[in-house]
């Protein structure tokens, strides 16, 4: 049974499970069946069932994780293609991004603290609004638990994708640009995915929100946490 611990076997399983999960969502179109979430859940179940520890899994897994950093660098390309849009209404976009980013960090930290969460958990929640690779990098920088951040980020994204549009309608956020921007800012890739479903223009603003909030969160989280006396 030691073959189960072979790193290439574990890599192959990861690819296969992800592919199956991806197909499943394509077929059903059901947002809760997020392929990343499903793959993580299945892999954890398998590893526990066959008594394989994370260290062994990560001998193969680290080759996948390796691509996270280059992938974040590659986000520079969509950012570049959107520079014109940003320039056109730089102040409203920057101000709303800044406000959303800072209130996001402060609110999650204050609520978690008030409810008695530990320091480690609070730090892991701070960058929860932005896309996972960026959020995990931020968590690593400030000393939280990156994998907890990953889970929370995916959950926040799904929730935002499901409830985002309705919530904004109720709260009188009506302009399509503001809605798209907010979806990307609060619910990163899932919000963008939802926005793309409405229209391409919506989606473009959502991906703008996703990218800008990613940058702002990376830039501001350490400072905001320091200001709040958390680190």
């Amino acid at each position: 049974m030691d073959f189960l611990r072979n790193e290439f076997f574990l890599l192959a399983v990861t690819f296969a499970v992800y592919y199956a999960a991806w197909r499943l969502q394509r077929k059903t179109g059901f947002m809760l069946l997020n392929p990343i979430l499903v793959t993580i859940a299945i892999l954890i179940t398998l590893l526990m069932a066959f008594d394989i520890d994370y260290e062994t899994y990560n001998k193969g897994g680290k080759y996948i994780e390796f691509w996270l950093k280059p992938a974040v660098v590659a986000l520079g390309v969509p950012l570049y293609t959107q520079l014109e849009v940003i320039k056109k209404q730089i102040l409203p976009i920057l101000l709303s991004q800044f406000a959303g980013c800072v209130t996001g960090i402060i609110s999650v930290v204050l609520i978690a603290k008030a409810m008695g969460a530990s320091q480690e958990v609070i730090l892991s929640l701070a960058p929860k609004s932005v896309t996972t690779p960026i959020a995990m990098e931020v968590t690593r920088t400030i000393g939280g638990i990156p994998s907890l951040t990953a889970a929370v980020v995916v959950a926040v994204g799904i929730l935002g994708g499901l409830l985002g549009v309705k919530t904004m309608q109720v709260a009188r956020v009506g302009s399509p640009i503001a809605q798209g921007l907010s979806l990307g800012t609060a619910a990163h890739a899932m919000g963008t995915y939802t926005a793309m479903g409405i229209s391409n223009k919506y989606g473009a603003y959502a991906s703008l929100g996703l990218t800008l909030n990613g940058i702002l969160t990376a830039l501001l989280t350490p400072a905001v946490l320091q200001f709040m006396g958390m680190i």
Partner: protein
Amino acid sequence: MVRQCAIIFGCLALGELVVWFTGIKLPSSITGMLLLTFFLKIKLIKLEWVKGISDFLVANLGFFFIPPGVALMLYFDIIKAEFLPIVVASAVSMVVVLLVTGWVHQITRRIFK
């Protein structure tokens, strides 16, 4: 393909260098991303030089964080112990971000039109 990789990893290495040199608390990958945007803007790098690999990497972004996500199994104790604060804080804060961003954008757009 080689040139594409050289550019992406070049920006990442430069990002690492900047972080190491200045000691700023910014992930090297974000620094690399900003550098790439900057190089594209000043036309030092042409868009078609990186389009292929960046489309591939961005499209598969989700896949790359599966292994770190699996590491969650190491923290089941913490999650169980602090489940409620984690869920409530994240959900409420998500709504706050959604509304604050939207409101501020609508108001400032009216002002700066």
